[in-house]
């Protein structure tokens, strides 16, 4: 079934769905302009706005459920933006609304959590302002009904991410990480921008409603080009190879940020972009989709491998995020069935990864912001709630039967397997590695003997932090089953991204599933042997070449440095030199030459009257001679 066509604004809550964006934006504005005056109640306002936005989203969702599936795609035009090019408008459909719910839902939880987490920070107000700004931008991104508006949100979240990674800007590392994130993202945005140009020049519009129906009329080459450029944008935002390098540095930001932006929502925008444009530019077959799957698989492996070697708990989780998004990307390249699983995994991942990150944050909160897992250990008794919730998230992500990951991830793997065995098996391998590194995190953090310093007094976090954990854990546990069983999400998304001819039948036990489980178990077991049974050295052992390879992020940064940074600096120095010596030198050189000529010529004026007379005499001769020459011509 093709995606349904887009209907006009039916009014009701949908009519004011722009409130979803406006409210957090307002919050951000108030908090930023209000300045110190709002310090006292700033965080409450932030939370309030996030919650309000969530409520609106929910209401919109329920109003939509009232419509027949074919009528669930409506556009809400806002105002004319660039006449003749693009107007601002929202597209409310199952896809965008499920994102809106995820963003505002998980977002609100993380807002609440942050009240506690940031309680000691003097700039908490600014933090909430940025969070609200992020929510607004992210909602614009997913709700936009055309590529330009999407792009505004797209770079808006980039800005929010920049501000939040660099929230502790007095730390040079943080400032650098923030800049790096923005610049690398810009590389992706460059691709997206060009894609938009091609779209406009090809279809004369950038509105989804006008472009997608006519996609068929464009040449295959154009479609592929658009697809690949969109993918470049997606890679930047979702930290896929080759633009993955910024994500691990991004962990410089406060943990809630890592949870919200760099795990649950923003980094999945790439997946959203691909799925959103899927029906038109990533039909599941064809070059673009193939490349998408390849990128996905490569990233999911790379992320997993990186995850195995990190001692910094957040970086380990970040690696895992990369890898999980790799899965989604892979799915997104597999056509309608894939889209559904991609989104399903995206949602569940949003929950369990936020859960894990917040858990990690809770641990750090109790450990004086210690992030090195080698200095943890045996925390399960001291932080029971954190431990339990973390455990749930852990089981969900490794795909423990009947927990979220088990449904969504295995769904992806199965689909990939049907699509292309190699992709499938690689995905399975990835699952195995996931099993290993996640178990490693759990063992190093919550089991084994206590390895922290004397002055650290681990303690459970306050309720305001633990409750969000509990909610998220619950979601991580059940959501997968709810979304996948009887293809609930797939059917729901159908109007937005299209449906396959026959819906895949999900069987709880399948050969591939068993194989996956086996591998995961093996990975977990190996992790237990290495980190659970024998004790963990406080200083990391040198480790094999592979270990360093993983620790150095597969030499991604080294590569960037060698390929871009060094040559770039060299080029800059050259250009500056050329500008001063070459271009400006030419200008000043000319002036100098004239001056020099003058200085030399004036010597002719010797001051001897006879030489002047000579000049007259010769001049006269020349004049007469010239006259003869000219006259006789």
């Amino acid at each position, binding site marked *: 079934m093709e995606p349904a066509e887009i209907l006009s604004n039916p009014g009701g809550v949908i009519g004011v769905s722009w409130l979803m964006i406006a409210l957090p934006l307002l919050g951000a504005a108030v908090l930023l302009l209000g300045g110190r005056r709002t310090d006292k109640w700033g965080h409450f306002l932030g939370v309030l706005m996030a919650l309000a936005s969530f409520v609106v989203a929910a209401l919109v969702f329920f109003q939509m459920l009232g419509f027949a599936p074919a009528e669930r795609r409506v556009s809400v035009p806002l105002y004319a933006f660039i006449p003749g090019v693009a107007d601002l408008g929202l597209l409310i459909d199952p896809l965008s609304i499920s994102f809106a719910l995820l963003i505002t839902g998980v977002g609100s939880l993380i807002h609440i959590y942050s009240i506690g987490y940031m309680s000691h920070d003097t700039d908490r107000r600014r933090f909430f302002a940025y969070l609200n700004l992020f929510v607004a931008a992210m909602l614009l991104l997913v709700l936009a009904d055309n590529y330009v508006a999407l792009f505004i949100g797209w770079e808006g979240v980039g800005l929010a991410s920049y501000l939040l990674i660099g929230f502790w800007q007095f730390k040079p590392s943080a400032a650098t990480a923030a800049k790096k994130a923005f610049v690398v993202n810009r590389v992706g945005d460059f691709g997206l921008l060009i894609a938009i140009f091609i779209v406009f020049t090809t279809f004369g519009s950038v509105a989804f409603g006008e472009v997608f129906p006519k996609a068929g009329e464009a040449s295959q080459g154009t479609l592929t080009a658009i697809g690949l450029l969109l993918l470049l944008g997606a890679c930047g935002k979702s930290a896929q190879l080759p633009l993955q390098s910024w994500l691990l540095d991004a962990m410089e930001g406060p943990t809630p940020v890592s949870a919200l932006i760099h795990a649950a929502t923003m980094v999945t925008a790439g997946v959203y972009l691909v799925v959103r444009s899927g029906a038109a530019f990533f039909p599941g077959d064809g070059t673009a989709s193939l490349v998408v799957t390849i990128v996905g698989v490569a990233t999911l492996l790379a992320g997993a491998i990186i995850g195995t070697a990190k001692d910094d708990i957040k970086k380990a989780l970040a690696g895992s995020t990369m890898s999980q998004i790799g899965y989604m990307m892979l799915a997104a390249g597999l056509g309608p069935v894939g889209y559904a699983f991609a989104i399903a995994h995206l949602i569940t991942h949003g929950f369990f990864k936020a859960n894990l990150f917040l858990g990690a944050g809770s641990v750090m909160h109790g450990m004086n912001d210690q992030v090195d897992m080698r200095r943890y250990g045996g925390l399960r008794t001291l932080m029971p709630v954190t431990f339990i919730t973390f455990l749930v998230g852990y089981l969900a992500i490794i795909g423990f039967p009947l927990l979220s990951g088990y449904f969504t991830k295995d769904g992806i793997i199965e689909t990939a397997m049907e699509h292309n065995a190699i992709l499938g098996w690689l995905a399975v391998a990835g699952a195995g590695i996931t099993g290993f590194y996640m178990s490693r995190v759990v063992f190093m953090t919550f089991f084994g003997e206590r390895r922290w310093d004397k002055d650290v007094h681990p303690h459970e976090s306050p309720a305001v932090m633990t409750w969000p954990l509990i909610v998220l854990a619950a979601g991580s546990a059940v959501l997968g089953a709810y979304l996948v069983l009887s293809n609930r999400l797939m059917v729901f998304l159908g109007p937005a991204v299209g449906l396959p001819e026959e819906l895949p039948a999900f069987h709880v036990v399948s050969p591939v599933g068993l194989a996956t489980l086996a591998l995961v178990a093996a990975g977990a077991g190996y992790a237990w042997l290495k980190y659970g049974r024998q004790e963990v050295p406080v200083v990391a052992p040198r480790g094999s070449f592979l270990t360093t390879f993983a620790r150095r992020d597969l030499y991604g940064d080294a590569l960037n440095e060698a390929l871009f940074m060094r040559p770039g600096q060299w080029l800059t120095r050259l250009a500056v030199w050329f500008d001063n010596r070459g271009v400006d030198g030419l200008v000043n050189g000319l002036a100098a030459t004239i001056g020099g000529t003058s200085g030399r*010529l004036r010597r002719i004026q010797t001051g001897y009257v006879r030489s002047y007379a000579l000049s007259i005499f010769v001049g006269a001769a020349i004049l007469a001679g010239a006259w*003869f020459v000219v006259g006789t011509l």
Partner: protein
Amino acid sequence: MNITAPTIEYLQLAPLLIVFGAAILGVLVEAFAPRYLRRAMHIPLTLLSLAGAFALVIVQTIKGVPTEPSAMGAVAVDGPTLFIWGIILVLAFVTLLLINDEDHFVPAASAVPGSAEEERALIEGNVHTEVYPLALFAIGGMLLFPASNDLLIMFVALEVMSLPLYLLCGLARRRRLLSQESAMKYFLLGAFSSAFFLYGTALLYGFAGSVDLAKIDTALGAVGGQDALLYTGAALLGVGLLFKIGAAPFQAWKPDVYQGAPTPVTALMASGTLVAAFGALLRVFWIALGNLDWDWSPIMWAVAILTMVVGAILAITQTDIKRMLAYSSIAHAGFLLVGVVAIGDAKQNSIALSSILFYLAVYGITSVGAFAVVTMVRDAGGEAWHLSRWAGLGKRSPKLAGVFAFFLLAFAGIPLTSGFFGKYAVFQAAIAGGALPLVVVGVVSSAIAAFFYVRVIVLMFFSDPAPDGPTVVLPSWGTAGVVGFAALATVVLGVFPQPVLDLAQSAAGSLFVR
């Protein structure tokens, strides 16, 4: 044999006659009036005569321009002449106000510099009141030079104009060595060049059998080129004229003389002489050699280019303010020459002529103003000639510096100054006359020229004053008047040039009478 008495149109020649008459009266004053009275008698005599002459010029312009040369075809009082006379008389008037100002001139020219004799003369407060009649003679010559309709009169006028100037150059009160040197150089070179002029005249006479410009023209029509006498004669004649306007390669005298001469005299030369010489040049080349333009315009091209470039480039590295202005006047002579070659049909000619006339007017006024300012910036040894002494003048006396800066911008041809419209008029005429390349050279060299004008502004305004910097003397009413007048004219003509343009056009409309 009976000789018919020549007819003289006295009214038409009246301005000439008045000026010369006043000059002769001046001589008589010098001869008979007691020393303490002379100045008192000279000033009104001189100024009134000039004013009167100017009035008569106005009258004639209103009465209508004569279409026939007067005085048996010896003097042509036509539109251009009247306009030029007007300019010269105005310039002469203001310049005389400068000359009239105190202590520009040596108390006793004959005395050896630094001798006891000079001391005494200084103490007695002697002044060479001869400067007034001398100036008047020079001015008379300037009036006659562009008006003369045959080469003999032109030669005489040339000498009448030059000889007094030679003397005046030598009369500077300070830096007398330089002054005398400049006088000698000017004299020798002037005489040298006038010899060329005369020989050219002779040859042309040999060619045409007459020195009457119109007759030469007709003779040319008959023969149509290809004659040794003609070419050599024309060339040598050209040398004499180009020398007077200071066109390269005959410009060598200008810097030295301008620098050495007393500043008021320099002003007179820079304005009056240039105007007169251009008048004569145009007359000779457009009337006498009018049929020969295919031959001389390429040469004029070369001369114009050379003049502009030399003037602009050499000025850059000058350190003496007057010397710099001299080179700038060379450059401007070049720009004017651009107009001279912009000939074509009658209409085009009148456009070119009017543009040149306008240019002469605005340039003359501005340069007098500039030199007037130079006379006011003094330090211990007289005028602060070295540019470095001008540093920070903008701080010490912003008004004067501002006015001078304005004059410089006018020289540079910045819009909203009279200089811009002068340049514009000439360039437009030249382009219409098909001399586009010449104009390109013109703008490039005026861009170069802008540099040294701007440099003076930088010195005056952007650099801090020297501790013992020059003082600005309180101007006498005369000097103040000159500066004010020049500034006013530069502004007004920079915003509303139309009236003067109209005058120039109506003057040029009828071209030269033959």
